């Protein structure tokens, strides 16, 4: 089970696959249509699709010959929420760091500028 979850994370960590998922949020598309914007072969796109499919993020209908790719949006939303939660926690921590740094800036203000000036 956690192995499957890892696969979803891995699938979404690749920029090309994220792009393909973004493309699929507007409508279903064939492999050829998905390959269009990229400077890669249909085979390479098929490989990416296989990863997305194995992770449960997309499915391909069996009936039509063109076999359009469909985004399983529900899974995608859940994963986004999952990682977003972690990100937000980090962001809270970094906001506190912002405040600490702002205070340091105030204390050092008269001398700090020359360091990075060109």
């Amino acid at each position: 089970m956690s192995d499957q979850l890892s696969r979803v994370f891995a699938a979404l960590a690749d920029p090309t696959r994220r792009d393909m998922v973004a493309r699929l949020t507007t409508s279903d598309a064939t492999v050829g249509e998905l390959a269009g914007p990229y400077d890669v072969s249909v085979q390479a796109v098929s490989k990416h699709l296989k990863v997305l499919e194995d992770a449960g993020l997309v499915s391909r209908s069996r009936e039509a010959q063109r076999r359009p790719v469909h985004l399983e949006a529900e899974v995608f939303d859940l994963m986004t929420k999952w990682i977003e939660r972690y990100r937000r926690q980090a962001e809270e921590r970094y906001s506190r760091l912002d405040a600490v740094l702002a205070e340091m800036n105030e204390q050092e203000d008269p001398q700090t500028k020359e360091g990075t000036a060109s």
Partner: protein
Amino acid sequence: MTTTMNNHIDEATIEADPTLPIIRMTRDFAATPAQLLKAHTDPDLFTRWVGPNGMDTRIIEWDVRDGGAWRYVAGREGEEYAFRGCFHRVGDDVIVQTFTFEGMPEDVSLETLRFEDLGDGRTRLHAQSLVDSFEGRDAWLRSGMETGVNEGYAKLDAMLASGDV
């Protein structure tokens, strides 16, 4: 999702590497690399921001040098969680350290923090955490979720279990 070189990253971005059990985070700060380094290594400054959220951090050991050890305890309402590790390398714009939650003493992550000078008193933090398995990493990401999110997770579990995914 895309970020060009010139954009500011004012909110933390996060990425889970597809091929290695790594989490990467990036965030810009209105500070110099030296200030960012200080905020990470000065114990009084560090405890003011490190968290976890809503917890007070008490430093037990803090030996900032190559090979020095660190240990701190985070507490809230009588509950205490201890963390420790080693400053493997502390440079002008880099910290390489290990990180362990003492409740799981055999799980150690290797953290590399780089402070990239963007000029104009701005610095980009590149934080990378390498853990020893994908399971470990994803459990760690999961630990960022608290109330309410478990609901979504349970739903996903159910979907996986029922073969809907």
